[in-house]
C-alpha cells in the first residue's frame, strides 16, 4: 500500500515536472540565445550551452605525406575506408577520422569526442538592439555588410507612454461609472448597464475602420491620444463591469453615514470608495497593462502612421519581417519586449490571479 502511494506520488511529480519543462523550454531557448554570439546562434543549437560531447580536432595529417591514394580503400590512424566514407568520417571508439576538402588538396583530420560547453556569451545583441548601433560585419568574401541597429529603447519608451495612460485612464473612467451604477439613482441606469454587459464580448475588429476614419478626420492618427482612447474604449466595458461588481459590495451603511455627515458624492468617491477598491483596481490594472503592452493589432492600426511612435510589439514584428533569420537580434529584441510584463507579472501575480477570477471575457 505504501509502495503504491510512493509510486503514485512519483507519477504525479514526474508528469508535472515533464509538463513544466515542456512549458519552460521555449522561453529558456530564447533567453539563452539572446546572450550567444551571433555566429554561434547560426551554427549550433542553443542547447550546446549544456555539457555535451563534441568532436574536437586533435591532429591534422597530410594524405600525400602518408602516401594515400583517394581512389582506393585507405588505411589511416587505425581506420579503414574509401574516399566517400572518409568524407563522412569514419569512427573508431572515441576517435573519428575525416577527410576534409577534395581529393587533390584535402587533409585528414583526427578528432576526439570530448565533453564541452559552448559558453561564448556576449551582450552585443542587446547593445545592438537597445542602442541602435549599426554593426559592420566583414564577410568571408571580404564584402562589408552593415546591419542597422534596432532602436528598441525608443520603442520601449513609446510602449510606456502608451501603456501607462491606457491603463489608468480606463480605470478612472470605469471607477466613476461603476460608482454611479452602484450608488446613484438616475434614469436609464439599468439600460446603460445592459449596454455595458452587452459590449463585453463585442470584438474590437468591428471598431477599427470607423474609428480610424474618425481619427484621420480630426488628425489624431498616429498620436498617443488616439491609442489611449482606443484602448480605453476597448477595455472600458470589462473595467466597468468588474469594478461595479466590487464597488457594489462595499458596505452601504458606511457610505450612508458619510452622506449624513455632509460629504458630496465626489469626496465620497475619492476619499472612501477609491481607497477601498484598491484590490479590484490593482487587479484590473495589471490585466489591462499586460493587455495593452502586449497588444499588436490596435497599435498597428492606430499608431502605424507615425514611425517615431512605434511600440515594442510593432518594432519586434517589423524585425521578424526584415531580419527573419537574424536570430541574435530577434532573440534579444523579443526579450526586451518581454522583460517588463514578466517583471510585473511575477511581482504582482497574486493580484493578477484575483483579477482573472473576477471574470475575463473581453472583446
Amino acid at each position, binding site marked *: 500500500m505504501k509502495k503504491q502511494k510512493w509510486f503514485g506520488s512519483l507519477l504525479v*511529480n514526474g*508528469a*508535472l515536472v515533464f*509538463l*513544466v519543462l515542456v512549458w*519552460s523550454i*521555449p*522561453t529558456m531557448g530564447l533567453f539563452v540565445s539572446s546572450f550567444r554570439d551571433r555566429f554561434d546562434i547560426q551554427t*549550433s*543549437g542553443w542547447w550546446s550551452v549544456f555539457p555535451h560531447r563534441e568532436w574536437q580536432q586533435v591532429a591534422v595529417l597530410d594524405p600525400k605525406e602518408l602516401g594515400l591514394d583517394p581512389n582506393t580503400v585507405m588505411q589511416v590512424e587505425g581506420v579503414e575506408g574509401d574516399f566517400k566514407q572518409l568524407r563522412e568520417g569514419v569512427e573508431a571508439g572515441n576517435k573519428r577520422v575525416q577527410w576534409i576538402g577534395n581529393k587533390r588538396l584535402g587533409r585528414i583530420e583526427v578528432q576526439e569526442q570530448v565533453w564541452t560547453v559552448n559558453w561564448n556569451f556576449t551582450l552585443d545583441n542587446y547593445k545592438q538592439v537597445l542602442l541602435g548601433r549599426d554593426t559592420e560585419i566583414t564577410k568571408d568574401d571580404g564584402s562589408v555588410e552593415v546591419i542597422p541597429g534596432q532602436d528598441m529603447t*525608443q520603442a520601449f*519608451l513609446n510602449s510606456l507612454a502608451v501603456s*501607462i*495612460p491606457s491603463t489608468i*485612464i480606463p480605470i*478612472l473612467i470605469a471607477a*466613476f*461609472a461603476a460608482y*454611479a451604477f452602484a450608488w446613484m439613482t*438616475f434614469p436609464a441606469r439599468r439600460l*446603460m448597464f445592459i449596454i*455595458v*454587459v452587452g*459590449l*463585453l*464580448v463585442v*470584438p474590437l*475588429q*468591428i*471598431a477599427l*475602420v*470607423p474609428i480610424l*476614419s*474618425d481619427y484621420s478626420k480630426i488628425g489624431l492618427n498616429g498620436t*498617443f*491620444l488616439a491609442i489611449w*482612447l*482606443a484602448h480605453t474604449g476597448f477595455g*472600458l466595458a470589462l473595467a466597468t463591469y468588474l469594478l461595479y461588481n466590487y464597488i*457594489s459590495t462595499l458596505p452601504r451603511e458606511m457610505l450612508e453615514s458619510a452622506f449624513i455627515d455632509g460629504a*458630496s*458624492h*465626489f469626496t465620497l468617491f475619492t476619499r472612501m470608495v477609491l481607497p477601498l477598491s484598491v484590490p479590484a483596481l490593482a487587479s484590473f490594472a495589471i490585466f489591462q497593462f*499586460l493587455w495593452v*503592452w*502586449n497588444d*499588436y*493589432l490596435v497599435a498597428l492600426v492606430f499608431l502605424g502612421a507615425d514611425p517615431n511612435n512605434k511600440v515594442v510589439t510593432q518594432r519586434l514584428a517589423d524585425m*521578424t519581417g526584415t531580419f527573419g533569420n537574424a*536570430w541574435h537580434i*530577434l532573440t534579444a529584441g*523579443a526579450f526586451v*519586449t518581454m522583460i517588463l*510584463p514578466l517583471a*510585473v507579472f*511575477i511581482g504582482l*501575480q497574486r493580484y493578477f490571479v484575483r483579477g*482573472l*477570477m473576477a471574470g475575463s471575457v473581453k*472583446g
Partner: protein
Amino acid sequence: MAQLDSGGEHSASAGSRALAWLVRLFLAIIIPLIAFVVLYWGFIFLRDSDAPKWVITLVAIVWGVGGFAVLYWVFNGIVEKLPKPWSGRLLPFVFVGPAMAILTWYLALPVYRTFWLSLFARDGYPPGFSPFLPWTWPAGIQSSEFVGLSNYVTTFTEPLFQIAIRNNIMWIVFGSTLSVVFGLLVAVLADRSKFERVSKSLIFLPMAISFVGAGVIWRFMYVVRPEGTPQIGLMNAVTVALGGTPHPWDKWVEIAPWNNLFLIIIVVWLQAGFAMVLFSAALKGISEELLEAGRIDGATEVQIFFKIMIPTIMGTIITVWTTIVIFTLKIFDVVWVMTGGQFGTHVIATLFYRQSFTARNAGVGSAIAIVLLAAVIPVLIYNLRQFREQESF
C-alpha cells in the same frame, strides 16, 4: 459690469455676497478655461515637440492621466455649483457620462457603422458613415455605390475565406480543447504535488508574453535548416536526432491544414496557464468530505476525477471554454507574425486586416468583421440572460 456697479451702491454685506458670487462665477469660468488651455498646450507639445523621447514620454503620461482626472474634477465642480435639484439630477451623468460616451463611440456605434459600411462598394466611405460627427468626408473618397449584401456573397464565395473559416474552426476546436485539457491536467497534478506554487507559476508565465514575442519564441523553435547541416531549432533538432527529416512545421504546406496545429500549439502554450489558474481555484473549492466519501466508497482516483471533480467544476470549465473560444475566434497576432496568413493559415481576423488595411477594401473587410460579430452573438445573448437573472441590480 452692471452687477458690479449695483453691488457697490448697496450695503456692505450685500456687496461682499455679490463679490463672493462674482469670484465663484469667475473661478467657475477661469478654472475650466485654464484646464482646457493647459490640456491643449499639452496636446500641441506632444504632437509637435522634438524633445528627447523620455521627456515626451513623461509629459505624455502626466498629461494623459492628469488630464482625465482634471476633466472629472472640473465638471464635478461646475455641476456642484448649480442649484440643488439640478446638481442632484446632473451629477450621475458626470460620473457615468464619459464612460457611456466612450463606449458608444468606440464599440456601440461602430457596430452599426461597420454594418453600414459593409453594404457599400470598395471606393471609400459611404454617405452617412459618420452620422454623429458634423464634418463630412472630402469629395473623392465618398462612395455612393450601394451594393447590398454582395460583399457578403464575395466573402463567403472566396476560397481564401472558406479556408479561413475552416482554420478558425480548427483554432476553436483544438485551441480551446487543448488549453482546457492541459490546464485541467496541470491543476490536478499540481494540487497533489509539493511543487505546486513553482510549477503553477512556470506554466502560468507565458501569459505575460505578447503574441509577437511568443511568435519569435516559436519561430525559433521551428527554425529549419537544410538536411545535413546542424539544426538550430529545437523541434527539428529533436526530429533529426530521432531519425526524421527536418520540416518547416507551421510553414509545412504539404500537410495543410494540419500545419495550423503548430500555430495553435503556441496559443495553447500561452493560454493553458489561464485555464489552470481558474481550474485550480475551482478544485480547491470542492469539499474535502465529498472526495473522502468517494474514497471510502472505494472509488479510484480516476473515478473520483471523472465522477466527482469534473461534474463539480463543470461551471468553471464552461466559463473557461467560452472565454478561450471567443479569444481564439479573434486570433490575429500569432498568425500575422508567424506566417502572415500564407501556407493555408489565414484566419478570419487576418483576412479582415488584409481586406481592410492592406487591400483597402473596407466593404469586404467590414463584412468579415460583421461575421466575427455574428459568431459571438450567442455568448452576448447568454451574458445578457445571465444578467437579467440577477435580481439585485
